[in-house]
């Protein structure tokens, strides 16, 4: 079985981001970048499927600037076999990303495509579902468990009412939630070895996809600030505060 994992390089999730004062976006220069956390879970899931005898080859693909090589190397160090960087300096919309990934799926014909459920920069939560539409494959989003059963997979999904398990045939698209697994840290020898694994760098133009944005980002602003609060010294005062809030609520 062949597994394709799509990963994105994003501002590290521990960084407290800063909105540029001119409203053009979020400051990303000189900021620590790393693999989107959900993508790490997707790579780990591919590794675990492979270790259970279900993945002969794990291919990593990332779309972004040259520096995205870093996150591909991280995935190769975790154990993936080869990488593809689709190089572009443009900030692409999720629809364009999905169209590029659909081209890769057509070339590679993987049995399972794993993605993160969302990228923590744009928080879109689109690409897996869009790729499923474009490749006309079944999808299982927000996965917290993946089991290979016969010719298909059974995926437990995190949904608003709790969890649900669905069965889908292969080939399929799966997006990873955080409780799917605990991503491994690559040991140093694996990091060294990753550098000798194949990594194809391909210009985005090679894919012949129309990348023109459909939306215009007029501006990016910081969220509204909250007024400073106060503290109380006892549960009695707290109860009084809550009682007042509740009675105001009920008066409306």
């Amino acid at each position, binding site marked *: 079985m062949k597994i394709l994992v799509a990963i994105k390089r994003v*501002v590290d999730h521990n960084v*407290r*981001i800063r*909105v540029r004062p001119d409203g053009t976006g*979020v400051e990303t220069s000189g900021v620590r970048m790393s693999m989107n956390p959900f993508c790490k879970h997707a790579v780990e899931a591919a590794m675990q499927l492979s270790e259970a005898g279900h993945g002969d080859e794990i291919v990593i693909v990332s779309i972004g600037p040259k520096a995205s090589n870093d996150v591909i190397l991280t995935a190769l160090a975790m154990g993936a076999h080869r990488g593809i960087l689709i190089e572009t300096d443009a900030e692409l*919309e999720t*629809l364009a990303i*999905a169209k590029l990934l659909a081209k890769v799926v057509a070339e590679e014909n993987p049995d399972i495509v794993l993605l993160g*459920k*969302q990228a*923590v920069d744009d*928080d*879109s*939560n*689109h*690409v897996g*579902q*869009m*790729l*499923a*539409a474009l490749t006309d494959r*079944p999808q299982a*989003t*927000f996965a*917290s468990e993946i089991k290979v059963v016969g010719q298909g997979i059974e995926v437990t999904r*995190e*949904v*608003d*009412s*709790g*969890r*649900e*398990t*669905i*069965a889908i*045939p292969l080939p399929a698209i799966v997006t990873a939630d*955080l*409780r799917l697994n605990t991503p491994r840290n690559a040991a140093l020898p694996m990091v060294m070895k990753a550098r000798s694994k194949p990594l194809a760098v391909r210009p985005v133009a090679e894919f012949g996809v129309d990348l023109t944005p*459909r*939306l*215009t980002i*007029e501006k*990016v602003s*910081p*969220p509204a600030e*909250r*007024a400073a*609060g*106060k*503290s*109380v010294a006892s*549960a*009695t005062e*707290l*109860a*009084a505060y*809550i*009682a007042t809030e*509740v009675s105001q*609520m009920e008066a409306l």
Partner: protein
Amino acid sequence: MSVLVVADHDLGALSPATARVIHAVSELGPIDLLVIGQDIDAVAAEAARVAGVTRVLVAKGASSSDADASLIAALAEPYHYIVQSAGSVGKDRMPRVAAKLDLMPVTDVVKVLGPTRFERPIYAGNAVQTVSDGQARHVLTIRASAFRAAAGGNDAPIEVIENSAASAARLIAAHRTESDTPDLATAQIVVGGGVALGSAENFQLIEQLAKKLGAAIGATRAAVDAGYAPNDWQVGQTGKIIAPDLYIAIGISGALQHLAGIQGAKKIVAINADPEAPLVKLADLALIGDLFEIIPQLLVELDKAGLKRD
């Protein structure tokens, strides 16, 4: 300009999110409300009562992302807007619909500024994008918590439509959280507990307080990962987005990803041992101390104050 809203429903009842979505898009044009699923007669009847709905369309059959997306895409032609709440169903389904129609969706909308201009949060709510969508048609998901609900009292006609879309997916099991607390995403009061509770048993302190206040229960990812609370109680970037009038956060540090879920809360109360915790800094009111001492006292004090909503 006409709007197709896809309804959310669960266990044979219309979800509270739907009336809020209807209200959010009510200025955009006349609204048809689509209900997809099995045993949905009661849902359709409820849907017909929501003010602002012109017509309820009922598509009977098992609901799943691939089949639903095909059905919605097939119905999309006459509509300028195709909309659902940004709950787990809308998140799963609407990007698939959008890609089928070759459209770029605008998701997690928290403000409708005009017919083609929307606000959506990015970076876990630490920045807000103003997006303008020049496409011929618009696929939107709406954060229900950011809008008030449309009124009731309507009596829209109900039409059953043909649904022949087939799914490759088969539902094997639903693992539901049994709870009689209000819907987290639309609750007026939410009591949230963090990993500091220490066990599932201790987490019942949060549940007791929530019960007394008639509140929904929230949890941090750390508390869910530790097995103290079910996953559907998680609040934050990866969990539910809440906007209650009052959020009481107990033993929660206030990590960026948790704060992402509570930015819409009107008043925030924090109970924490650490005066430097980010959530304490952000709260309207904080009480510093040990939650295991404070919650039992608070339960007694609320009784004394005569407060009872359960």
